[in-house]
Structure formats: C-alpha cells, structure tokens
C-alpha cells in the first residue's frame, strides 16, 4: 500500500501514480478508434447486408451494439493488461497487497452504468423490432408488428423433410420449389411445416421463422434490391438438414408478374391436385388426404403408429 506520505508502495519515493487516470487515458483512444472503425469502415459491410428492410434493420442493430460493446470490452482488456503489467509481483517482495475489501462508490457506479447500458439496449432492441414490422423474425400466428399500406404479397413457405416449397395464394395457390419476390413490395411469409420443426432462413432478406407442424408463423420483410437470396434451414430436422438449401431471387415487379403468370399456367394441372390453400396443413384436416389414407388401408397414424382408433397421419 502507498506509504503515509503518498509515495508509491515500492518505496522509491516517487508519488503513487494516478492509476485511474492512466487507465482512462489508455482506454480512450482504443475505444474511440474501435468505434470509428466499426461505424465507418466495417458498418456498411456488416452481415446480413441491406438487401431488405429487415436485413438493414438487423445490420444497424449489430452496428450499434458493436459500437456500445467495443468500449466495454476495451475497458476490461485495457484495465486487465495494465493491471497485469503494473501490479505484477516483483521478485523479493513477499508482502501482501493492500486490504481493500470493497469500495461502495465504485460498485454503485459500476452497477449503475451497466444497468443503464443494458436497459437502453433493451429499449433499443424493442424499438428496432417494432419499427420495421418485426425485423424479419417469425412472430407466430398473431403478429403484432405489421407493415403499413395494405395487404402484403403473401408467400406461404412449406417446410417438409427435406425441401422447401412455396405457395402463392394470391395467384391461384400454385406451389413451386422456387422462391421469387418482387423488389419494393411488402412480403408476408406464412411459414409452416408438414412434419417436424424446420426453420426458414432467407439470409439476405434477414428473415428467420421456425416452421412448426400445424402452426402458422408469420414474418414480414420488404426487399429493396434485386439479387439472389440464400435460403437455408436453421433448425435440425433430420438426415438432410444441411441440404435444405436453395436460392431464391428478388426481381423487378414486372419480371415477377411475368413469372407468376407463366408459372400459374404451367402448373395449372398440378394446382388442381393440391388441397385448398390454408395456413396449416394438418393431415387430419385435409379432407382428401384422410379419405385417401383410409382407402389405402393405412388406418391409424403413420400406418399403425397410433392405432386404428386415431385419425390418420401423416
């Protein structure tokens, strides 16, 4: 501990340096440089990019959190490095350190500052979530944050083991394996599954919504640039989970209209075979499917998994 006249503990007679000030002066440039780099250099390139409103929101959320996290990390790391260099044990010094049991002011300041940071992050996160219609996250079947301006383009995403299909109810309800979206239009994804839990993740659109069987999970976005969209499955769904990868396209509105018209015509025969469009496809509720299974002698779910008194499945 410092000697009674305020000189340093090492007995050299020099005054005890103001460690707090030194640490602050070491920390400040590190934090500033890190923040500037994050905001200006790294920021525009942060994942998931800015191809849609939800992706841009997420990118800005990550940017702001990084700007807040960098000084905190810098403080702990700079303090740690300073401590390990300045306060390391010197050979021959077998004294114990000063008996500092605590410091109420420091503790209260720390708790106060961390609470403020954390609470403001929570508020910020809520604002970012509410603003752009849910920021691309799946909101369940009763979404509370919707885009303004009329009914969005409805795209139903059907997950099944192990391929995604997409149904467009506003264009006759045809079902395809390719995802096409028009730029500049609000899109509503209605995500559901036919068997186990999958998760629809359109990376460049910043959309992720779990596909649960018998449940409709809604997510919104608005693509703002044309380009390719990587669709992956983000919830382990069995053997070929890693292979449930496709590429979707965001194209101009006119190209999209051309595509829907031609696909609708092309798939007309198939669309007649499909069950009517609903938000979930419970095997028991799809009327034709039930009769068909019974005719095939598959009484009971999955051909005997649940016994003959149960409605049919799958």
């Amino acid at each position, binding site marked *: 501990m410092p000697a009674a006249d305020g000189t340093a503990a090492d007995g050299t007679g020099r005054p005890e340096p103001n460690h707090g000030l030194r640490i602050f002066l070491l920390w400040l440039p590190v934090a500033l440089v890190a923040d500037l780099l994050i905001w200006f250099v790294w920021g525009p390139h942060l994942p998931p990019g800015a191809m849609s409103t939800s992706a841009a929101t997420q990118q800005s959320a990550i940017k702001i959190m990084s700007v807040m996290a960098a000084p905190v990390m810098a403080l702990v790391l700079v303090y740690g490095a300073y401590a390990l260099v300045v306060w390391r044990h010197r050979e021959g010094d077998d004294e114990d350190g000063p008996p500092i049991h605590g410091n109420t002011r420091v503790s209260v300041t720390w708790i106060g500052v961390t609470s403020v940071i954390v609470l403001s992050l929570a508020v910020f996160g809520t604002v970012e979530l509410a603003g752009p219609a849910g920021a691309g996250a799946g909101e369940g079947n009763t979404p509370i944050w919707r885009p303004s301006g009329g009914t969005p383009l409805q795209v139903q995403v059907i997950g099944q083991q192990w391929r995604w299909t997409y149904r467009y109810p506003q264009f006759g309800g045809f*079902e395809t394996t390719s995802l096409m979206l028009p730029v500049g239009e609000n899109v509503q994804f209605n995500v559901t599954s036919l068997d186990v839990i999958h998760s629809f993740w359109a990376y460049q659109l910043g959309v992720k919504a779990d596909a649960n069987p018998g449940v409709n999970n809604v997510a919104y976005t608005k693509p703002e640039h044309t380009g390719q969209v990587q669709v992956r499955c983000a919830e382990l769904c069995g053997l070929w989970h890693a292979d449930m990868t496709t590429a979707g396209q965001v194209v101009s509105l006119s190209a999209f209209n051309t595509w829907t018209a031609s696909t609708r015509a092309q798939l007309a025969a*198939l669309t007649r075979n499909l069950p009517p469009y609903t938000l979930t496809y419970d095997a028991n509720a799809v009327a034709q499917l039930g009769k068909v299974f019974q005719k095939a002698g598959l009484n009971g779910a999955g051909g005997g998994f649940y016994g003959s008194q149960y409605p049919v499945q799958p």
Partner: protein
Amino acid sequence: MSLAARVTTLIVAVLAVVGGVIFVVAHYLLGGPPTVDFAAATSGQVNVTMQTDASSDPAVVLDHPTWVSYFIKSPASGSWVHTTLFQVPAHTRVNVTIYGYDGSTPVRNQVWGQVTGTTSGVADYGGKPVKTVNGWNGPYLIQHTFAIPSLNLSVPVEAGPATCTTGPCTNNQHSTTTFSFMTPAQPGAYRWQCFVPCGLSYLDGNGGPMQTIGYMTGNMQVVS
C-alpha cells in the same frame, strides 16, 4: 506400486483406450452400404436399374428387413445390391429404370406427384408418358419418388401390385417407371430421397427407412 508396475499398467491402459477408439471409429463411424459404380461406362450414356420393395428377405438384408427399400442392379455382375449409393460420370445422360414392387402410399404433398428435371420433361409408366400424377385419386397411384433436389429432379414411381415382399424381387409383377436426366458438370455428392412418407410406424411416416442411407435415401456421387 513400484514405478515399473505403474508405467506398465499405464501403457496397457493407453493401448486399450486407443484400440477401443479405433474399433468404434472403424466399425460404427466409417461403415456404410457399398457404392455401385456406373462411372466406368464409356459409351456416353449410363443405364441405371433400380427396384423398390415393401420389405426384404431377412437373409439378404440383415439390419431392417421389415423396412421398405431400394435396390440397385450392379452393371458389372447383374445382381441386385442393397444400397442407395451409386456413382456416375459428370455431364452424362443417365437412363433410369425403376421396377416398383411396392404398393401405393399416398404422398403427403401433391407437388411431388409432378415430374420435373428429366430430359424430356416427362417420365414413362410402362411406356406411357406422364407429367402430373395425382397421388391421392389416381388414375395412377404412387409408391415412392426418386428425387434429386439440387438438380430439381423429381419423379414419382408408379405403384405396383405389392405381391412380392422379400426383396430383392425377380418376378415380373412390378410397375416400370423410366426417365432420363443429365448429370451436372460439377463433381460431388448429390443426395437423393423419396418424398412419400413410407416409413411405416414412424411418426409422419418420415422416420426409419426414409432417414437411413441404404433404404429410401442415398447419395449420387458424380465423378469427373
């Protein structure tokens, strides 16, 4: 214990552990069904013959004889191999013939009743071209599908009479589905699977054989 005794015990224990690890890796982690090789063909086209069966002969298929399964005919020996792994050359036309011995199972999603990705755009059921099959109401019923999703290939296999239940079957009571597709230029493993929930007594019908390589799903290895 003396130092020598401790060292000896330690060496024996280490060898036992290493041996155990190698055993587990070799037996349980690296095993698998054989790959039928069609890549040796030099004629510019490859003919692949497969069959689907409701269940198998327990003497031939030791693991799960009650499961539905594909078999592939080896081009070299002409015998039926219990596997779903096969190898084809890149950028080649593959002519597939599937003998369907199993009976019909309704498909879960009617989308898979449509033929996509073949060279002619259709498949042949006993010589008659089909494009869109209504797996629920007919007139053609489906037993399984052969689909390679990354090539957008999907072909429903016509239902058969299901009289033979000890695969591999050799009689002529089967449906015949034929189609052709082009293998891609990029070599690698392309998974293929059945989209009909035919895993009897598994939830949703998608367990068991549907998720086990060697039965209803496998890999097409494209080599350059």
